[in-house]
């Protein structure tokens, strides 16, 4: 079994309304030294991989076609092979 850790982030420059509101909240709660908050999504996939193929291409496809919105998001991932 192989585990894919996928991180989907907003492209820089794309407005993050949620991050803005969380930043204001942290300030009102006294955490003034926090300068910015960016929110993003994270997916953990477990993939069967008996014959130990290189799954990078498949994960790329999954991210581009399903998990990420190419207009406003970019993605990065790493693969962990469990015996």
């Amino acid at each position, binding site marked *: 079994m192989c585990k894919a850790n996928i991180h989907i982030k907003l*492209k820089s*420059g*794309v*407005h993050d*309304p949620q991050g*803005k*509101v969380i930043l*204001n909240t942290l300030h009102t709660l006294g955490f003034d030294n926090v300068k910015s908050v960016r929110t993003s999504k994270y997916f953990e996939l477990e993939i069967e991989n008996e014959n130990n193929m290189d799954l990078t291409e498949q994960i790329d496809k999954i991210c581009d076609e399903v998990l990420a919105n190419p*207009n*406003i998001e970019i993605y990065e991932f790493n693969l962990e092979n469990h015996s």
Partner: protein
Amino acid sequence: MEKSIITKELISEHGLSEEEYQRILEILGREPTITELGIFSVMWSEHASYKNSIALLKTLPREGIGLLTKTGEENAGVVDIGDNLAVAFKIESHNHPSALEPYQGAATGVGGIMRDIFTMGARPIASLNSLRFGNLDTPEVRHLLKNVVRGIADYGNCLGVPTVAGEIYFEHSYTTNPLINVMTVGILEHQDLTTAGAYGPGNYVLVVGSATGRDGIHGATFASEELTEKSEKKRTSVQVGDPFTEKLLLEATLEIIKHDLIVGIQDMGAAGLTCCTSEMSAKANTGMDIDVSLVPQRETGMTPYEIMLSESQERMLVVVKPENLQKVEKIFTKWDLHSVKIGEVTNDKILRVRNNGKIVAEIPTESLVAGFGAPVYHRQKEKPKYLNRLNSFDITSIHKPDNYNQILVDLLKSPNIASKNYVYHQYDYMVQINSIVAPGSDSAVCRIKNSNKAIAMTVDCNGPYCYLNPYEGAKGAVAEACRNIICAGAKPLAITNCLNFGNPYNKEVYWAFAEVIRGISDACREFGTPVTGGNVSFYNESPGGAVYPTPVIGMIGILEDLNFATTQYFQHADDIIVLLGEHCNEIGASEYLKLRIGEPIANAPKVDLIYEKKVQNVCYQAIRQGIVSSAHDCSEGGLAVALAESCFNRECLFGAKIDL
């Protein structure tokens, strides 16, 4: 002044023709700076200037009793409904942004039209949408439908404005160029009616709401280009909507209007700051002197060009008297929103833009604005040849179906006719607790609290009818809207329209456009429903060709007594079913014919406006005399489908016995 480095490519990249650039040189008496070129490009784009449609739009009937605004002059149409109340309403398109990024495109479409309403001083009470996609059998179309609906739902629900009615059609013609038209209806008291004029030299000009970023730059010119592979790379110019900030902006704006603290206000939509500053000053016959470095910015290092053209969402431009500045700032601070003075109104009719004091643009405002100095063109028209082939199709060549029941079932299953509850149950159609007729009936009805009145509202158009006969199809769209309003027990008042067409430089497209304008005018005159404003969206094309001519009609009606609100559903067994109006065997351009042939064909049904008006009056009088349990109009699918739909009463299903 900024050193100007204007090249031929830069000019065409900005969508300006050679003649248009020559005019700019004459107006300025010199070469434009890059910021000035950007300002002219968005203000003279089709989207902002209506240069290829304004001449014809002026022929639409715009007069009518009870209109409180001159059509095309303000952000929305406003109609008096008595008791010191008025209804503000308008429909707008967000087709191109939604084609590339459906969720944000549709969401920001809702946000934009909402601002047009509350900038008039009206509280939005209902939202409607008219959507058109390709056939549902491809994953791409399903992706567009799912995300457009989610975008509209998430934005409208968060804002607390009920999405109460609409229409969705699936035709091959819209496959890569969906139509996303969104309408908002609001209520105001007469004294709160505000204008979008920058009156009073010396008054302060404020940017209020969200901070400004680089999103959506070239949104206006982008909407004036065909969707080609080239425009794919413009995807990064996507505007992101924030309904939470819009809700704060809505409450803050209504508060400053309630306290009579402003002179003029306009929403920053397409072409952002550029459009507001030039339109508001041209309307008031004044000028503006602003400094873009004062505009609150979300990103660093933005150039004057980017700040003037940015289409960041949830922003307004407000003109206030100096003595009211503090009060306005206090209210916006309460709602955690920016409100920053960026300049002043002047009396030299010049739009002067500075950056840290240095002048980067100086343009006579009138030369920029539609209806004033912006270019006006008259395009050539030519009836399309394909219509001769299609219209001459012989209906009698279709043999009678052997199994009528199966035909009815197939019609009821077809996506254009089947129930849309899987969509509208994602919309909060109940918030504000005014929805006395919920989605699914002919038109939605929202009560006006603390009064016995209610407003009926609907959006209607049949694309195939307008494709096969633009004149009759346009008349049909207005007639159907009237029928839907009347079937709810209301009296039609006025319309707004969203005219979705292909490339205006194509003679056949422009012929259809002119025919549609003629049809709308004749119908509106006959039904006494003036055109109060709306939107034109050209360049709705895809590699396959122009989309069907699609003039979406948004209509509102008034119920003097909300107890007469009627739905399309049968109410009691043993009621008698009456067909009003002559039943002529016109199956041209029908869903049935499309079922049999596979494409819309033959000719659209003729609309006898005088006869239609009589039928509508009889129905209206009958409802008002309390002798009608339900009323439904025959549209797609004809009499059979109308009868079937009337049986689907959610409380309990009914049947019907008919003698043809």
